[in-house]
């Protein structure tokens, strides 16, 4: 929490500027104390590879590259999961091209796997789309959590990067941004790594089809769990994490028991955030 305060400037009304006129935001609505910070962020963003100032967020090729390279080990794990998805999609009757198209455009592992589990003849289109939406609602929270850093970027960069957001690279990005790196392009770079491995593994899995058999015998079903355990270890911030995490854990386990689908993920995150808002003393 303390570390956050350093990297997160106080909210200002200047966000709307960036919305209207990409990144060159006029400082007319800003208070005086906000102006230097915003100017700094805007300056370094347009200046590309210049040395970033301590608290600014930049969007550079170096950020893309660092994100990509950092994410490759995790993307390998995602690849294992992608093979499992490809096999499931093949068993559901999708062609290799259709499975690859889904991985390339939807890019949301859990939702895709649940969707192909729902796949039947005739196709329950409404149920599939509603389920995908519900499973992926957590992405809204995850995207919102990036705002303290993304506020410095233009809408095109923000929304383009968010298209590449998956669970794994979002968590890596949060870790990187919280360390004060100011690498606004990290999400895009790490997302490209996820995309390449996810789509590639989908094709391999769909081609392998029946040959692979039951993926659980290789422990492939445990990969996503392992990824999240590893991410939890990294996201732990000490004592201050304890209460929100216990709240999230209790809420999620209870909700998973009594609610259908993946609502427990959304609920666990929201309740923990709500408790933190109530607990917070300014």
């Amino acid at each position, binding site marked *: 929490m303390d570390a956050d305060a350093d990297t997160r400037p106080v909210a200002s009304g200047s966000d709307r500027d960036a919305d209207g006129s990409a990144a060159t935001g006029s400082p007319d609505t800003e208070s005086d104390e906000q102006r230097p910070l915003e100017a700094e962020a805007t300056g370094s963003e347009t200046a590309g590879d210049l040395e970033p100032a301590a608290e600014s967020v930049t969007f550079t090729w170096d950020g893309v590259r660092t994100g990509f390279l950092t994410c490759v080990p995790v993307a390998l794990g995602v690849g294992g999961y992608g093979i499992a998805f490809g096999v499931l999609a093949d068993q559901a009757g999708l062609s290799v091209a259709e499975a690859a198209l889904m991985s390339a455009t939807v890019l949301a592992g859990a939702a895709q796997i649940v969707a192909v589990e729902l796949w039947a003849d005739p196709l329950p289109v409404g149920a599939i789309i509603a389920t995908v939406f519900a499973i992926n609602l957590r992405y809204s929270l*995850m*995207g919102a959590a990036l705002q303290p850093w993304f506020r410095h970027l233009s809408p095109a960069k923000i929304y383009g990067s968010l298209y590449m957001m998956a669970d794994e690279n979002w968590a890596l990005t949060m870790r990187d941004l919280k360390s004060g790196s100011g690498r606004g392009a990290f999400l895009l770079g790490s997302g490209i790594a996820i995309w390449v491995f996810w789509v590639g593994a989908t094709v391999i899995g769909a081609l392998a089809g029946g040959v692979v058999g039951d993926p659980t015998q290789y422990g492939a079903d445990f990969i996503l769990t392992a990824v999240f355990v590893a991410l939890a270890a990294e996201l732990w911030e000490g004592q201050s994490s304890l209460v929100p995490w216990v709240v999230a854990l209790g809420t999620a386990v209870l909700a998973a028991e009594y609610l259908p689908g993946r609502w427990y993920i959304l609920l666990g995150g929201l309740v923990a955030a709500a408790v933190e808002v109530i607990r917070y003393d300014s």
Partner: protein
Amino acid sequence: MTPDLPSALSLDPFIVGVILAMAAVTVLTKVGGIWLVRRVDLSERLEAGLSVLPGAIVIAVLGPELAAGGPAEWGAAGLVLLVMWRTENILLALIAGVVGVVAFRAVL
């Protein structure tokens, strides 16, 4: 599933439509949250709430998954934690977890 197996490259227009609809709602969820918070000024109190989201969501994903598992999954999860703690190497931790879960499932 059907007797006339589709060739690897076939793209059924109807299925492509369903896939693109899935992609569209997914994009909505990915950009929706930040679109919303960019339009309201966040108090420090609200930002404190947002800041616990990353860890809380990871735990919310993990909790029910581990609760549904057994000693093999719990042991393997512990192994991932241990390797992460000692080496901070994600790839090593993942390999340890997957090898561990296969081994534990065979033994337990």
